[in-house]
Structure formats: structure tokens, C-alpha cells
């Protein structure tokens, strides 16, 4: 798995800027305003200005679930699995956390801890289910995961309009706000929660150590590189695959908890925010390397938060942010692929070129 060199970064970024300008000119607006608004709406303009901590807090709290899901996906990708069920794992984490927040009464530190644990367990079980379908049933994890995503989304909608409907009005806008004791502690006036940041960094650090310094990580990588050989070498491949799905599910589930008790303060139908799929893009761009997840997922969180204001302020569709994220990942992949292709061609020509 090759890493980036500076030239590989310049190409995708210039493609993104070019396509952003092209699209905005096509949409008939001045290209500078929207791009500035994305930065202003996420970290303030000029960036990180004093007194704008609420905005930065929001962006960081969007970063946390993306980073957690990305950390989990690094584990499943290294095990050779396409965990598209990640959305469902985030959602089930949020549902489990919401259940604890609504039904359990305990002093605040304990209750917060319980919601986080519940989120981890909810996501873990949902991830395990994808893994079991794959290992015991031979169901491709892409489709098992996708099916479970649909189930989780339907389940959330059902909970919100029926058993957990808001008192008085049954609407799809969400449940009642959770009791204060269940909410993630945050610094005053913002959503920023140091606890959430610490968990995300710990998760990324843990995954980094897993693949840098542990036998378990090495074996997981072996399973991902060649399932059959690993099995013949005596690695219990099914157990490792299930382990990967459980780790990923638990991390994604904690991300769901943060979404529920640290950002929306209630359960809403689109509780995952699409951050699971976004995390897949992050990990593809990070070339499955834990360290790179930190800046890339922050950049993606900035785009997600910043572009959400395009509708209101500039009457532009906020999907622009998603387009830019997609173009960035696609051009980075094609750039790396093209560079590798050129290198191979040059090597062949240098050695006399047997296949041209």
C-alpha cells in the first residue's frame, strides 16, 4: 500500500479546486463566496477567530463520529472486509445510547459512561451480525451490511414515530430531548466535549498501535491480504473476521452515542448523518493509515458543516460539499493509480519491455 508523495497531493487538490470553480460558474455564482462560506461556516473567517468557538465546537463534534468510524473501518479494511454496514452500526449505537439515556436514571458521570458503553455494545452487536452473515452464511459483507443499514434506518423511524414518540405530537422530527444527566459534558455555550475528543484520539491511537505493534494486528492484516493462506497457516480466520467487525462496530457505535447525546441531544431519523459512508471515503483517501485519518476527517467535517449553510446563505444546494469530497477521493485514487501505472511502464521499458 503506497503512501502519498507531495506530487500526489497537488494533483487531487487542484482537480478539486478546478471542479469546484467549474461547477459554481455553471450554477451561475461567483466561485469565491461559497468556498469562503464553507471555511467561515465551519471554523470561522478568519479561521479560529476568538468568540466563534460554537462553530468550531460543532465542527469538532462532527469530526468525532467520522474519526471513530474511520478508525473502525481501518480495522475492517485491513482484514479485507468492505464494512458498508457501518451506517447501521452507528445508528444502532445511537439507539442503544438513547435507550439508556431515556430509561436509566443514575448520577451524571455514571450515566454518561453507561450511554457510551451501551453505544459500543449496540454497534458491536450490529457489526457482529454482518460478520456472522459473512462467516457462517457466506453472505457478502457488502450486501449483508447494506441490508442491516436499511433495517437500522427503518427501526429508528419506527421508534421515533411510535414507542418513543414525543409527548403529544407524533412527528418525524425526533424524540424528546434526553435528560441533562445523560448528555455528554461540554464546555459552556458550545457542543464541544473534551471527553468525546479524547475518545476519538484514543481510538485512532489504539488502531495505530494495533497495526504497528501487535501480533493480533499482524494476523488481521494477513487475513486481509490472503484469507485462504492465512487459514492454511493456522490462523482461525473466521474468528479474526468477527473480531474486526466487532471492533469496528463498537467504535462506530460510540460515534453514534456522540451523535445522540453530544450533538442532537435526542434521537432523530437521520441520526448517522451519513458519516459512516463519509468515513469510507476518508479511509480510502487516508490509504488505510490511522494517522492520516485525523487531518482528513477534520477536513471532511469542515466541508460537511460549512456546506450545510450554503442553502440558507447563498441559495446553493449543500450537496456541493459532498461533490467536493467525492471529487477529492476519486482524483486521489486515479492519481495514485496513474503514477503506479507510469512507474511500471518505465520499469518495463528499462528492462527491455517484454509485454510493451
Amino acid at each position: 500500500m503506497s503512501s502519498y508523495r507531495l506530487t500526489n497531493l497537488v494533483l487531487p487538490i487542484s482537480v478539486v479546486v478546478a471542479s469546484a470553480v467549474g461547477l459554481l460558474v455553471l450554477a451561475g455564482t461567483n466561485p469565491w463566496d461559497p468556498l469562503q462560506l464553507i471555511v467561515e461556516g465551519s471554523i470561522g473567517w478568519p479561521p479560529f477567530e476568538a468568540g466563534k468557538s460554537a462553530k468550531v465546537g460543532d465542527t469538532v463534534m462532527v469530526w468525532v463520529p467520522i474519526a471513530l468510524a474511520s478508525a473502525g473501518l481501518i480495522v475492517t479494511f485491513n482484514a479485507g472486509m468492505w464494512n458498508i454496514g457501518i451506517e447501521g452500526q452507528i445508528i444502532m449505537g445511537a439507539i442503544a445510547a438513547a435507550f439508556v439515556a431515556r430509561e436509566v436514571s443514575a448520577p451524571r458521570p455514571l450515566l454518561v459512561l453507561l450511554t457510551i458503553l451501551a453505544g459500543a455494545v449496540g454497534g458491536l452487536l450490529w457489526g457482529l451480525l454482518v460478520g456472522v452473515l459473512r462467516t457462517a452464511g457466506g453472505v457478502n459483507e457488502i450486501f449483508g451490511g447494506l441490508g442491516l443499514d436499511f433495517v437500522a434506518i427503518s427501526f429508528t423511524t419506527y421508534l421515533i414515530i411510535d414507542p418513543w414518540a414525543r409527548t403529544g405530537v407524533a412527528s418525524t422530527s425526533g424524540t424528546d430531548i434526553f435528560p441533562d444527566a445523560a448528555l455528554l459534558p461540554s464546555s459552556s455555550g458550545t457542543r464541544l466535549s473534551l471527553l468525546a475528543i479524547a475518545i476519538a484520539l484514543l481510538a485512532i491511537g489504539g488502531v495505530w498501535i494495533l497495526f504497528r505493534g501487535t501480533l493480533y494486528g499482524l494476523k488481521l492484516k494477513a487475513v486481509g491480504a490472503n484469507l485462504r493462506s492465512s487459514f492454511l497457516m493456522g490462523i482461525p480466520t473466521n474468528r479474526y473476521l468477527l473480531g474486526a467487525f466487532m471492533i469496528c462496530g463498537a467504535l462506530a457505535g460510540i460515534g453514534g452515542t456522540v451523535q445522540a447525546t453530544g450533538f442532537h441531544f435526542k434521537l432523530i431519523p437521520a441520526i448517522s448523518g451519513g458519516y459512516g459512508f463519509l468515513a469510507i471515503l476518508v479511509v480510502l483517501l487516508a490509504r488505510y493509515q490511522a494517522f492520516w485519518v485525523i487531518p482528513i476527517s477534520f477536513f471532511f467535517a469542515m466541508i460537511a458543516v460549512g456546506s450545510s449553510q450554503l442553502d440558507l446563505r447563498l441559495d446553493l444546494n449543500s450537496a456541493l460539499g459532498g461533490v467536493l469530497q467525492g471529487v477529492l477521493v476519486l482524483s486521489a485514487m486515479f492519481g495514485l493509480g496513474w503514477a503506479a501505472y507510469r512507474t511500471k511502464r518505465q520499469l518495463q521499458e528499462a528492462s527491455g519491455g517484454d509485454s510493451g
Partner: protein
Amino acid sequence: MSGFFTAFVDMFDTATIASIVAGSSALMFATMGETINEKAGVINLSVDGSMMLAALAGFVIAFQTDIVWLGFPAAAAVGMSVALLIAFASIKLSLNQVAVGFVLFALCTQLSRFLGTNFVGRRPVGVPTWEIPGLSSIPFFGPVFFDHNLVVYLSYLTVIATFLFMYRTRKGLELQGIGERPEAAHSRGIPVNKLRYFYTALGGALIGIGGAAFSLDVKLGWSDRLTRNLGWIVLAIVIFGGWHPLRAAFGVLLFGALQAYAINLVPEFPSLSQVLPSIPFPAMILALVIVNWKRLLKWLDRYPFLRAILRSDPPTAIGTRFKVN
């Protein structure tokens, strides 16, 4: 329990069955397209996004020109371009097909939302109804199959043509060969990668036409994420269909019937009205789980007839690259 039963019985009237057939055209085209390119060994995972972008392209062209038929080639061109990107990335650049397909799914979805903003709620001319004289007056079969429009009729023809081409022609045998045993095909002088480009493009074009069939006929108009999740269902149906065009077509109709059933259930369970319409999606995936369940299939080996119905073996070389040495 009686609610489940009455809703089921209600499905069996001519009008409901006719609407299931008419409403399945978009999925028919796209499913045949994906079956063709997977049969050739290339997975196009972008269907959900490329179908949506193609639906928008078809809609915009038809709306701007007021000629509905111009929308279809435009949509086919969009679907084909996305598919060619995947083929190029996989064959020439040795990138992972699934990864490129997923990124293109995300990109095309967002692009369709961004570019489609100003078209939400506009109504173009739809595809005119054209009942086939003579055939449409056959009792039951007439209204069910021959009282729709050209798009619906073409969707049947596409299914039949795909089947005949794949299993009754020399070229179709070559198509199967490059997906099953590319090395063997190569040694018989068949240009594996060239044909893979061709069939991926053809599959992409059909996926695009499926998108246009949705925005110009099945659900005339444009709205945000108009075709959402249909592409994923296409991918599931291709597997459910065991990469066989006729069985996949059956899967499409089954999905349509499930949707009709779910909608019939709404009056029985009003509190679930928001959830029921989305039930067919997990249900279809559940069906997929059953046809893939290895233990179940092993048990079924004792009953060759059932096994033949439920078997679903992918083309051997699906998702792999073929390199000439």
C-alpha cells in the same frame, strides 16, 4: 393477522398486477445492465449513484427540449461514462473496482442533488401511453402486459434479448467466457479486456436508461435523491437472480410485488405508515441471504430440483483483473 391476509389478497387484481409490471421497467433495464457487466467480470458498484445522475440527465434533456425520447440517450451516455471510468480504473490502472465504484456512487449521488436543485418539482412531458392493438384486448394478459407504453415494452424486450444473446449466441458464450475463465478465453483468441470495456459500457448504458425510465415514466419528475436505494436493490437482485437474466427479471417483479404489498398493508397498520414502504429493501436483502446461505445450499444439494431453483453462483472471475503475460 387477518390484515396481512387481506392485503395479500388485494394484490391479485388486474390493475395492481399491471401497475407492478409497469412500475418495474426502470429496475428491469438497470438489472439487465448490471447482470451483463458482472457476467463479463466487472462489478459496477456505482449503480445507485450513476442511475440517479442518469435519471437527472434524462429528465433535464427531456424537460429542456420537450422531446421525451431525447432524455434516454442522454441518460445512457451518463451511465456509460461512469461505467467506463470504472473499467478504465480497473483494467488500465489496476485499482480496486469496488472502491472506485463506491466513490463514484457517492460522487454521482451528490452531483445529481447539486445539479438538480433548480429542477425539483418541474414536470416534463411523460412517455405517451400506447396500447398494442389486438394484444391489449386479451383478457387479463392484455391489461397486464400490453396496455402501457413503449418504455415498458422495451423493458421486456431487453430482458428477452439479454437472455437470448447470453445463452443462444456465440458472442454470448464469449461474454460468459471472459467472466468465468478469462485465461481460457484469451488463449482462444478472444480479446478479454477489450470486451470487458465494451460490456461494462453497455451495462452502464442500460443502467442509465433505467434511471431515465424512472424519472420520465415510473415517477415522472425530479426530486432530491429521486431514485435512492434503487441501485442497491439492483445489485442485490443481480445476485438473487444468480446472474441469469430471466431469474433476475423475476426478482425485479418480486420486489415490485413486495412494494405493492407493503403499501397495501399501510391502512391495516396506520402507525407504521412511515416504515412499511421501506420494508421491501431489507426483505429483498433477506432473500439474498437465503440464496447465499452456504449451509442451506449444502442441505439442498440432496434435492436437485430445489437446488437448481435457488442456486446462485457468481461468475468465477468476477471482480478480478486479467493481465496478458
